[in-house]
Structure formats: C-alpha cells, structure tokens
C-alpha cells in the first residue's frame, strides 16, 4: 500500500539543476523587462526621450504613459520581474553555486553582479524597496529599506563578487553566460563600472561618496573598450525578437509607433549629429530631422520616427557601455569628484564618449572621430556639466530607464538636463519621477509596506 501511494514525485520538473540554468532564465527575463512595454515604453515616454506622436493614427496614441497614465500592470510586472523571475532565480543560483562541492565561486560572483544591477534598478524605479529582508524564505513580510541602504547594498554585493571571482578556478558560467561567455576579466571590469555608476547616482545626495569615486577612477580596471559592453543580442527569429521590434511588427504593420522627441532631435540637428539617421527615420518629404514635443501630434510628412534599424529584430538590449563609462569619467574630472578637476582630461573623455557612442550606433570610425573632435572643448563652454549631461542623455535615448535616471541625477529639480516641460495632455503638477508601488504584487500583501500612496511625481532620495 505504501508503495502504491509513493507516486508524488513531479515527472515534469527537476529536483537539482546547475545554477547556469537559472542564470539564463534570469538574464532573459531581465533584458525582456528592460526592452518591453512594462519598463522601456513607460520610462522612455515618461522620461520624454521618445514621444507617442499624439493623435497620429499610427502613433502609440494618447492618452498614454506620456500623459502619465501608467498602467498598474507596468508597476506590477516590473516589480515581479525584479523580485521573482530575475532576482529570486539569481539568489537561488548563488545559493546553489555556493553550496556545491566544490564551490562554484565564479558562478556565484557572476550572479551577484547581475543581482547588484537589479537592486540598483529596482530602487531607481520605485525608491525605497525591500532589500535587506528580501529573497529570504524565512521572512514573509520584508521591510522596505531606505534607498540609501539599498544602493549601498548593491555596492556591497559587487564588492562581495569582486572578492569572490577566482581566476584559478575553471568553474564558472561560460556557455550559459549570454553577456561575456564566462570572460571573468570583463565581468570584473563591468562590476567596477556598475559600482562607479551607483556611486555617481548617490554622490549628489551623499557627497562622502566622492572619495571612493576618486579612488576607483585612479585605480582603473573599469570598462575600457567597446568589447566590454554589457548587452545581450536578440535574434531575428520569431519568438526571439527584440520586443521593441516585435510590438511594431505585431501591432503596427512594422511601422515604428514612436516619434523622435524634440529634446533629443533638436539638440542633434543643431550639431548635424551623424547618429541622426541611425536613431531616426526621416520622412522623404522632410527637409531635415524634426522631433516633436511630447504629446504633440506627429506629422508623417515632417516628423521623424524612431528608426527600425535602431530597434531591429536582432538589436541587442544594452545595459552598460564603454561610452557610458567615459561620460562618468568626464563628469568626475569636470566636477573634481575625489580627484582634482581637470577640464582638459574631461574634454578628451567626453569627446571619446561621443565618438564611442557614434561608433556603437553604426557611424563609421572616421566620421565618428571627426564629429567628436569637432565638439567644443569643455573649457570653452559656459556650462561644461550641462553639455556632458546632455550628450550622456542623448546617448541613452533608447534606454528608457537609464536615460530617465541620468536625467534625474543631472541636476536639482528644475535644473535637470535637458530642461523638460510637462508633456501636452499630462495632468497639471510636477514631472514624472518614479513608478508607484504595485498594489497586487506587494502592497496589499505586505503589512510592512508603506501605507501612504507615493505618487509618480514625488522625488526619491537620490533625486535632488
């Protein structure tokens, strides 16, 4: 009888897996979140780096996220991805790697770097979030940590990972590493750059971080070439296409839903930026590249749409680039963060950053270099930081959340770069600053969650 009843073993699931199998799921879920309708579209529209085209029949339509009508699905799905499909799988992969015999230190460290990115993003999206008590099966109702704690926690995860990488060990995630195929040197450089970015996000609110920033740029070992870019390619195969492409393909006959934002296009047009044709598709009737004010109606004969080459089926999801690293370094030397201010060095770095951005976007090397070197030296402009911030933001135009975070940290309220206005049709009040907490996924089931509604236009700790 006992044997007759011993059939309660699930034939469709595994009781043991290699941590790399969880890592691949977490990686894919993570890039899908970043490039799809739950995070990319709302952040890019709310952050005004792209626009809907207003009532243009083949535009995204209004009212939308551009008018601050954020879907509760976006709030909830983003939270779910960060905490469950991505975060919890990474956490379990770390635990499997560390409890294996022999211990797989490199796999654990790789997962920790990715988890640090997830933690960083989660707090820049929502503000105070569970961290110290999150992902713990012994704690049912994690408390919400202050953003400063979370960001410091993200840094601590990277420090742990850096200490844990073990070049001598052959054990690591290699074939299942969609980013670097197990190249540990690249992982370490990325880890340091991500840490630097986190410090840069904190330093305006917490100036004590400047010392650490100075140390890091002095020591080096950061992302140092385009080969270090942290990204995952999509495939030009049905079911594996970049969601940015797929949504246009499935809903709009292949026509891009989104238009260029005047904040980006006007800036680039005035510079005759060689990236313009890479970023945008110009109507044949139009004399030049023209963006539109967020919320305004796009004119099919005048205004540019986002390019389907930029958002190709196999376009990668980009998480960290060499030019991004260079923009931070240019900023560090311009502001003298933990190092002596050095505008000459900063000029070189920002021009290099723009050049790398051009090349990254498919501009040929000569044109890129000519364009970058033709940009003004920082010492000749009245507001060098404003220029760096603007270029930095333009480079991130197609990276919704990253551009939005760059904008938020570019200056105190009202002095951000660029100086955005309320989109047409948006409710009176302040500009978009964050996602609200998701009710279903967290608030209603967590007695330790904040009781008061934190609105989408309230600033968070790092955002001055």
């Amino acid at each position, binding site marked *: 009888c006992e044997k007759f009843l011993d059939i309660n073993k699930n034939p469709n699931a595994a009781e043991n897996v290699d941590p790399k199998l969880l890592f691949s799921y977490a990686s894919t879920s993570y890039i899908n979140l970043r490039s799809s309708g739950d995070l990319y579209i709302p952040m890019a529209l709310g952050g005004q780096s792209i626009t809907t085209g207003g009532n243009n029949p083949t535009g995204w339509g209004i009212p939308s996220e551009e008018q601050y009508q954020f879907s509760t699905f976006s709030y909830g799905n983003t939270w779910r991805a960060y905490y469950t499909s991505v975060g919890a799988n990474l956490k379990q992969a770390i635990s499997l790697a560390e409890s294996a015999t022999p211990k797989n230190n490199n796999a654990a460290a790789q997962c920790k770097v990715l988890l640090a990115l997830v933690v960083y993003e989660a707090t820049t999206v929502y503000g105070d979030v569970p961290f110290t008590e999150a992902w713990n099966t012994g704690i049912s109702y994690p408390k919400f940590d202050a953003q400063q704690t979370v960001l410091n926690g993200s840094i601590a995860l990277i420090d742990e990972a850096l200490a844990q990488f073990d070049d001598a060990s052959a054990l690591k995630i290699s074939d299942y590493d969609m980013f670097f195929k197990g190249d540990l040197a690249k992982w370490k450089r990325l880890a340091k750059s991500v840490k630097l970015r986190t410090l840069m996000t904190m330093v305006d609110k917490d100036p004590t971080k400047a010392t650490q920033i100075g140390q890091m740029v002095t020591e080096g070992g950061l992302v140092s070439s385009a080969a270090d870019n942290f990204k995952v390619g999509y495939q030009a195969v049905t*079911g594996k296409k970049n969601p940015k492409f797929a949504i246009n393909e499935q809903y709009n006959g292949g026509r891009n839903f989104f238009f260029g934002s005047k904040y980006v296009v006007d800036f680039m047009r005035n510079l005759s930026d060689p990236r313009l044709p890479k970023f945008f598709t110009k109507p044949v009737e139009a004399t030049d590249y023209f963006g539109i004010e967020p919320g305004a109606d796009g004119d099919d004969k005048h205004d540019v749409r986002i390019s389907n080459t930029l958002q190709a089926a196999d376009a990668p999801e980009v998480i960290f680039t060499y030019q991004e690293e260079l923009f931070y370094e240019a900023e560090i030397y311009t502001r003298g963060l933990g190092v002596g201010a050095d505008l000459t060095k900063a000029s070189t770095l920002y021009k290099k950053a723009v050049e790398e951005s051009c090349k990254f976007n498919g501009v040929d090397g000569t044109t890129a270099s000519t364009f970058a070197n033709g940009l003004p030296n920082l010492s000749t402009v009245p507001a060098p930081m404003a220029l760096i911030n603007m270029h930095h933001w333009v480079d991130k135009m197609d990276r919704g959340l990253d551009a939005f975070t760059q904008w938020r940290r570019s200056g105190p309220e009202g002095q951000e770069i660029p100086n955005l206005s309320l989109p047409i049709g948006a409710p009176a009040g302040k500009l978009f600053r964050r996602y609200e907490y998701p*009710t279903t996924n967290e608030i209603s089931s967590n007695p330790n969650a904040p009781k008061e509604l934190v609105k989408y236009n309230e600033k968070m700790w790092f955002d001055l």
Partner: protein
Amino acid sequence: QQKKITGTVTSKADGTPLPAVTVTVKGSSLGTQTDGDGKFSISVPENATLSFSYIGFKAKEVSVGASQTINVSLDADERLLNEVVVTALGIQRDAKALGYSAPQLKGEELTKSREANVINSLAGKVAGVRVSSQSGTLGGSSKIIIRGESGLGGSSQPLFVIDGMPIDNGAQQISTVAGAVPQGSAGADFGNRVGDINPEDIETMTVLKGAAATALYGARAKSGAIVISTKKGVKGNASVTFNSSVRMDDILKMPEFQNEYAQGVQGTYNIASTNGWGPKISDVQDKTFPNFLAQDVHLKAYDNNIKDFFQTGKTYINSLAFSGGNETGDYRFSYANISQTGIIPNQKYSKNNITLNAGKTIGKDFNIRTILNYANSGGDGRPVQSSNNPNVIMPLIYGVPRTVDMELLRNNSINPETGQQITLTPARNGNNPFWVIDNNNFSNDLNRFYGNAILSYKILNWLTVANNLGLDYYNEFRQGNTRNGTIGALTGNFFTANIFNRSFNNDFIATADTKITNDLSLKVIGGANVFENYYQRNQSDAQTLTVDQLYNFSNAATVTTTNTSNKWRMVGLYGDIGLSYKDYLFLNVTGRNDWSSTLPAENRSYFYPSVSSSFVFTELMPSNKWLNYGKLRASWANVGSGTDPYQLAFVYGPQSTAFAQYGYGSQFPFNGLLAFSIPSVIPNFNLKPQNQITTEIGADLRFLNNRVKLDVTYYNSKTDDQIIALTLPQSTGFTSKKMNAGSVTNKGFEVALGLVPVKTNRFDWNFDLNFSQNKQTTQLPSEVTAYTLQSGWSGLIVKTRSNESFGIFGSAWERDPNGNIVIDPATGLRKTKLDQRLGSINPDWMLGINNSINFKSFNLSFLIDVRQGGVVYSNTASSLRTSGLAKETLANRGNIFIDKGVVLQGTEYVPNTVPVQSMQDFWGQFSTTNTEANIFDASYVKLREVKFSYKIPSSILGKSAKFMKELEIGVEGRNLWIISDHVPHVDPEVNFFGPGSAADGIEFNSAPSTRSFGFNLRVKI
C-alpha cells in the same frame, strides 16, 4: 340506520395490506384504523362515504352504497417524500431514516426547461445550493456552491457521482494565445465536464449537502456531493420515448447606449478612438468626417448598431430512449443530441450522448449491471474573454462608436483586393469585430467515455457483497487560431492543446442487514475504495504563419511545445453502522480512513467519523389531521482532505518562454540556451490534511393532510487547517507559500416550504419555496492580515480577512470622516485610496419560488429566483462609461459640472467648488484604476424558468392511444426576465473566474448571457 362494513386496505403498487390506515366517515366524527393485516370494521349510517387516509398514499373516498365489504387499494403519493433516497455510495435509504438534509430531485424537475449543462437546472431549486455561470458561452461552465465556499485554497465544488462512479468535473483554464503572455484566468470558456452528461438520462439527483451525508465518500466530497442515478428499464412492455425541443436565444441584457455623440477626444472627432467622446452629432451636420472606410461622410447615429451585431441563437435538443425489462433483466438505451448556434455569429456547440444501462439477475442472488456512457461535445467560435488577447470580443463589439453602421462594418471586414483586414480604426486597438469572429476561431472537441460495472451477490439472506468498478476517461482537443493581419498579432498564430484525463475507481462493499429483535434492526456496511486520477496536457503554440489561414505547425516560423502531467491516488476503508428502532428512531455511525498520495508519508493517513440520527416523533403521537408527519434530525461529522499532487518538494521547472509585455517575449532555447526557474510557490514538506467539522439539525414536518410541508435545517460547518497558498509579497521572491492555516466557518438556515393551496380532481396548485441564508466567516493566523483568493486586474483582488467573509477589494474613492468623497482641488476629480474592502462576494440570502399549476391535462410551472446581497464588479460597465458610450455619460456634457464632494482646505473639509475639466475626464475615473467605481449590488430577482405543457389525454388520442402511451406538447423558457437588479448594462449573475476559483462576482469582458424560449414535444410509445 347503522350497518357494519368490513374490508381490507392494500397498497395498489404491490398489493400488500396496509396497517394503521385511518378510516373515517365523512361528515362525522366516526372513525377507526386498520389492523396489522390491513383489515378494518366500522359501523356507518346509510349512504355514508368512507374516507381512507394514510401517510405516503393518496387519500381516497368511497361511497358505501349497498355493499357490506369494501376493499380499497391506495395509490402511493409521490409528492410525499416518504420515499427512497439515493445516498452516498448509491445506498438507498428511507427518507425518514436520514439524519441530515438530502433533497432529491427527479429527472423531470431537471428537464423542465432544458439546459445543455445540467448544473444550471439546479438554480433556485434546492435550498443552500448556489449556481453561477461563467459566461454566456455555449457549452460554457457553471459553478455550484453548496452552503457557501468552505475552502481558502481553491473552489469548493461538490463531488459528482453517477451510479456510484465519481466523475471528473474539471474546468481547465489554459493559456489561450501563443507567446509568452500569462493569461488572465480565463480566456475562452471551454466549459466544465459535468456539462457532458445527458440530463435526460437522470432518474434522480440527490444533493448531499453536509459532511454527515458525504462522510462515506471521504475527502473528495468535503464540499458536498451530487449523487445521480440514471434511468433504468422497467419491467413490462418495452417503450420508446422521444423528446424534441426547439429554442430561440437572444441577449438577456443589452447595454444602454447614448446616441448623440460621435467618436473622438474631448469633443473633437478622431477616427482612431473607439468611444463616444467626440463631437455632438447634431452640431456637426455641416461638416464631413472620414469613416473607417476613409470615406468622408456626415455623421449619423445608428441607434441599434450593437443590437444588430447579435443574431438569434437556436438550440435543438432531441433525445430518444428505448427501454424495457422482464423478471430477470432490464435495459435502457438512449441517444441525445444538442445543437446550438449562438447570439454571437459563428458560435456553435453540439453534444451527443449515447448511454446503455443494462442489468441482469442470474440465478436468484447474483446481479450484474453495467452502465456505459459515451459523450462527444465541442464548440466553435468560443468568445475570448478576459484581457491581453487581440481576440477579446466583447470590448470590440460594445466599443463600436455610435456613428458606425454595423451592416457596413459586417460587409467590410476584409479588403477583397488585398485580403487584408479593414480595421475599425487605424490604431493598435482597431480590430474589426467581424474579422475576429469570421477568422479567429477558438474551438474544442471532446470525446469521453465513462461507465461502470456493478456485481452484487447475496451470500446469505442478510449478507450481500458488491463491487463497483468504474472508469472515466476523456480526451479534449482545443485550438485557437489568430489569422495573419489581426491587429495585435499581425503575423498570425495558433495554439493547440491536447488534454487527457483518466480516473479509475473501485468500491468493494459488504452489507449485512438483520433484525436483532422485532423492533430493532441493524445494518452494517463495510467497504474499501481505490481511486486514481491521471492528467496530461500537451500544448503547442505556433507563431508567425506564412501561408494565410493554414494552421499547420510546419507553416509557422516557430513552435513552442509544453507538456505537463500529474497522477494521484487514494485508498480508503470505511464502515457504516445503522440501527433502526420500530421504524421511527434511527442512528447511523460512520467512519472512514483515507490514505492520500499527495500528502507527506507521515501525514497521509487520516480518519474521520460521523454520527447522525433521526426521530419520527409523530409515530408516537395519536393520529391527527393537523400534524401528519414530524421528524427531527441531527448529525455531526468530521471530514479530512488532502491536496493537489506535487505540492511538497522544491523543484525547478523548465521554462518555455520569458515574459515581455504585449506578448512578444522570448522563447527558449534563446541564444541557444535553455532555462529553468525556481517555483513561484514555496512548497511545504509538512502539509497535513485539512479538517472539516459539521453539525446539522433539522426538522421535517407535514401538516393538514400533507397540504403543508416544512423542512428546516440549521448547520454549522468549520474547515480548519486549510491547505492554502498564502500570498506573499513578491519581494520575498515568491508569490505564495503552501501551508496549513486558517479556517472558514459557514453557518446558516435552510427552509423548504411546500404548499398545496388548491387541490381538486381537476385543478391543483403546488407552491414550493426554498430559502437559504449562509454566513461565512474566515479566521486567519494573527500574522496574516489578509488572504488572497484571486488576483484580478488593476488592484482588484478577491480576498478575506479574519472575522469577515470573502470580499472584493480594490481602489476606492477617498472619503472624509463623514463619508463624503474627497475631490482633488487641482482637477475637480475624485481622489483614490488603495486596497479597500468593497463588499462581500456572497449573497445574504437566496430564495427560489416554484409554482406548478395543473388543470386537467395542462401544467403551468414557473420558477422565480432571488438573490439578496453581495457585490459584483463589472468591467463592461467600466468600459462603456469611460469610453463615453453608455447612456449615463450624456449628462452634463458641455456644461460646467462640479462633482459632489469635499476638498481639503488646511485641515478642514469644505464642499467642493472646482469643476471637472470635462465629462470625459470625469468618466475617465470609472476606469479599472478605481475598483469601487465599478462595484454594484449583486441582488436580483429573475424569472428563471417557465413551462406550459399539455398532456394530450388518451380520450383525444383515440385509437392511437393503444400504442401511444404519452403525448405531451409544451412551451418553455429560461432566464426570461430580470425582474429587478442593480448592475447597469450587464446581467448581475456572472462569475468570470469560473468553477476553478473560490472567487466570485467578477465580470470581465464576459460573453453576455442569453434568454431562451421555445417548444417541446414528448412522445412515449
């Protein structure tokens, strides 16, 4: 002049003498009773009339005349429940011996106005039973709840048992679109499996409501049991019965639309909007605007355009049965067919049933019976409901602007030159509804066999052994096609699913029946049960099709296949000891031990007992006219239950896709790699069985010659140690954890009142009323503030808290301490507060009122069904209002409108004086982001069934009467009239989540329910 009359009173059915029959002389106080041999003797005046009455028999009057001997045979009165009731395990017991409420319905009651799904026929007929349909989909599913939901972990559906074989009543909801979209809970409604049975085959249906009644079934029947006995052939001449019904269906409740405003934004015409927020049509007659065909036209309202979308659905129900029998055997063979077309064009459903029930007695003591059933059912054009699928049909239909001519849309869904869809708008939400229903078919086809073989052998005079071996097996094939060119899936896709389910059940039962003394009888039953269920599903999703409308996997750029299966077993041993004293005092004690494969080995065995008793106290009273029959009953029972398979171990599931919003995520292998994930539910290695304790008391009383019958019951049922998936905040990394916690108590009253206000030879009127009131209360561990039963959309959640019933929660209007709505002074719009309780999903009480009037050969019967209390959420109402298409959105358009409410000034609330910027903004607040805006009182009064029939008397049949035993013609109707309700635009009786969920009261783009009216013909030869 007195004379002495003697005689014998017998039962007409079997000729046995009847003792204790009351014999009275009409119009006098003279009277006597028959003796043990049915004999009586009485002195009466000349020309007297004798009246004979006896419980369970129809009273009879006889004129004395010249005779001195009067022998009378009495007809059994079937209206009296002094009858045999089929109880657990098919055990037949006298109703008077039952210590619990177990109402039994006759087959005719269920086929009064026929329903494809027999569950629907129970609505309003049994106190304590609540039936709700998931949708108006043909062959759609219905949920049945007996005495309130008792489970936190999932729906509390009763066990369905046919001729001793427990059958599957699954209502599988699977993802209905290819790709990585996690679906809402439903998608298309593919029905529940009890819908496969043929109502015409049912002889009786007993509703076992409480644990005492179901104790012998064990864990599977903790939420009650519906025990069905099918018709058998009867001794005598062979007969053929033919029944045919034709019915017409139309939409029960049509939304009310405005007919003054065109589509647009804030008063300006916009072809891209499917709404009514454009210009006032009469104001812009001097201009032309582009329509969906890009023609410049003058705007005109098409008042009936939505009504024109729907068609009259038709239902044909035909059945044929052959039956007969002799001294040693009987047979019944039946065939039934239902074919239906829907109110939404291209929707079809059909069902075929073949049944054979045959029994044979071999020798004197050996009996064999087999019941074989084959069913084939399936439908086309099942409407897609819920969200996240371009084929969700109701918003496409109801969203058609007032200025669109439905005929023009119908005739222009496809461009004849290009073969492309002509969309209603150029935007991403502009699918032409006719394109969707003409091309994107969601269908299923199911083949099912169930049946059993019962062998019984009377070893000794007092000892019988029987074995009942049964199998229930089905294979369902589902497919959903989305044609290339559908907005939201422009490259086309389709999915198929193969669902296989098999259950096997064997009961071995020994019954000993003996008289200990003349007055004391003992019946002992011992049994053993083995049950196994195996389920398997293979599903394939194909994306990006090359050749138009070729739904073949080789025509797809990519196919993702997933498979799942599970198996569980249960072994049970049970016993029942029944004592009866003098046929008026009864006591039953039962016990059962189950071993379930789904629980940890150390917790898998569990025992539960029950005790029930009944006392027919009128047997001890002198016979009187006022109270004919009185019985008290009481029971106590305990039931345990296990859980679903594979809930104990932490396992890693292989992943087929990674989610991305708008449905185009990544399929694995991605970049050549596979992927696994941790579970979303934290398993629990130490689960123990849930435990339910029920007490029930009741009385069954009959007054005034059985003209008044009253049955009252009080019950209290508490289910403890619930096996639940406690929702966790997702910051834990999981969505929930399995645990034993919480309890649900259901207590309530049930009253069944039967009256016969008029009864003559030619005319009688029967009035039956059943009332039930159930109060549900949850208790949760102190650290759990609320338990989520079902998550919905945009913060809408069905959950429960300690000391409360299951309720709908969601965002609500913010209110000041006096209950006034708080207005935002910046916009004039209402402020919203998250996560508020908005009402109970349960009714306060329910009432069914059944009338049956017979006049000569005419019968008129009708059933009124009343629900009072509880709330319902309507997404359709929300969409119609936010889109400015509902009639009520006409108010204040173009005027300055100041919403009634208060604004906060400093610390004071003062009356609001800020106008809203537009009525479009005002009604925009009624979107799904404010749940309260779309919450309504769920009470209703409905005319559920009407039947008018005429049995053609043999006198009219004349010569034909020789071979025609019965000919009846009738008119019947179902869901004819919502007499009263409180929900705008939709039928308040809706349960989107279906039978699989404990949640209720949610309408989300549900296919509308129908009213049905038609004719019926019944012939028996």
